[in-house]
């Protein structure tokens, strides 16, 4: 009887240990995964070229993809159909208010691939293959006079592209 009592006291204490621990530490319910599991899930493609999928493309190949999927909003030559859809031209040093486009304003070419892959075309985001995203990226850069028509755009070459306004930004992230 006494032994049983001791036993139940022991289990009672055991049962309470995790509760005490939980009140000070997190429950830790995250499920371990691997980066390989996330290859299609993780769409982040930063300037250092990491996160870019295999493959590549040229402006030559991208023209047709652009004409079919992009021109309806961005215009046949990237001139846009409303203020926010202009993606070609502009000059940050113009006399009047500068026209800010991919060519005149965007500091990194990687952003173009990253954004097209995650968010474009606006009516059907993520409907292009990685290959097609490379091709359209190349075509938009070509229309802006930043790469040649036959330049191969891929995870290695994209980080070498110097955008015209690359040095135009002042990082204020230290002000918190």
């Amino acid at each position: 009887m006494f032994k049983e009592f001791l036993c139940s006291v022991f289990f009672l204490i055991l049962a309470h240990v995790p509760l005490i621990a939980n009140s000070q530490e997190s429950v830790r319910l995250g499920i371990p995964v691997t980066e390989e599991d996330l290859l299609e899930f993780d769409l982040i493609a930063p300037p250092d070229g990491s996160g870019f999928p295999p493959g590549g493309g040229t402006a030559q190949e991208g023209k047709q993809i652009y004409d079919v999927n992009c021109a309806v909003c961005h215009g046949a030559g990237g001139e846009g159909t409303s203020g926010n859809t202009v993606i070609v031209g502009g000059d940050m040093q113009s006399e009047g208010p500068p026209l800010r486009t991919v060519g005149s304003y965007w500091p990194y070419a990687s952003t173009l691939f990253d954004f097209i892959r995650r968010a474009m075309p606006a009516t059907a985001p993520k409907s292009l293959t990685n290959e097609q995203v490379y091709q359209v990226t190349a075509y938009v850069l070509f229309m802006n006079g930043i790469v040649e028509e036959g330049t191969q755009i891929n995870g290695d070459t994209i980080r070498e592209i110097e955008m015209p306004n690359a040095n135009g930004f002042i990082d204020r992230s230290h002000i918190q």
Partner: protein
Amino acid sequence: MSDEKLGKVAGNGLISRRHLLKVGASGAGLALSAGALGADQGLSFQIPTWSRQPGPGATAYGARSPFADDLQRLAAQPNPTYPGGGSSRSPLQHLQGTITPNSLHFERHHAGVPNIDPSQHMLVINGLVRQPLAFRYEDLLKYQMVSRIHFLECSGNSGALLRGEIGGSAQSLHGLVSCAEWTGIPLSTLLDEAGVLPEAAWVAAVGADAASMGRSIPLTKALDDVMVALYQNGEAVRPGQGYPMRLFCPGWEGNVSVKWLTQIKVTQEPAQFRDETSKYTDTLQNRSSYQFTFPMGTKSLITSPSGEMTLNQPGIYQITGIAWSGRGSIRQVEVSADGGKTWAEAAIQGHQLDRALTRFTIPWEWNGGDAILQSRATDSRGSIQPTRSDVIASRGTLSFYHNPCIQSWQVGPAGEVRNVYV
């Protein structure tokens, strides 16, 4: 009525914020027009019909009075090249206190509101961590949570003032700010579980909307006070605010509080997403551009009287408004009725919380003449809300994000109130 008797404290009719406390109970000297009896004013003292029969009983989900259902957010016209994109603005001029009802909290979407089944939604933490992790919604509900009252303001709020927009109301010009009690898990708890590696300096947050909208946030902030918010004002975060979960970054431009949060990637450098390069950056007059402007400024706004309202007759009005700062609490709000020539300190009504809306109020006697009403906030760090000229002098008019400038409301001879630039 003499200025002294009314306790005038600044030009053009501002009355001491303490004055009403002294005379308010009796109303001495403050009645709009004396002498009229209730019956002459059209008041009826018959027992009304709703006092003669029982009304409907309790309901499963509440609704507002049909007499008060005209209060709406103001949404922009849909844009065919931007499906689901755009914003809706809170009706600030009709709200009181400091908490925004969830149905009226402002919205800003980049590809519409996704209809997320929480059992199919995951929050992934990967990148520079010891162990990448995936969290189920049902599991996140088991974590210890914190609750904090904070404002949320879109970086583009009040941008119309830098463009010199004519007219407008508190809602149309400034309605991209709201305030709520947010409840969720400190992001640091989840980052600790994954184990942040020493070389990490940033995190990239990504939403599960059709734009998979992403923003980069310095790790110092992510480990400080950022939360994964699951509840807003006590109920599950609504779809328009990121259901089933959103990031919440107190005091910072709204866009970094990524909705429908599905990924946190720990990195060494910012990801340079579209919405932190092409958008939400501010070009200066010399054509260089500010990037990563995170905390919102020290700011205030008179919500009543405000643009598109009309004052019916000269007399006493209670000026009221909201103030907030992205870097602290509100220490003081001053009000001017003469376009900034003289100022009087307003009374703070209720809470004065860190990075939350703070309500201020001050009585004012409109004499029927010209008046320009302004408010000016000072935060707990001593930072003072700038004038529009200050903002333009420091960065020009090529950008419209992150504008904290003083709003001027002009009261015209017929009592009409409108947005002006002084």
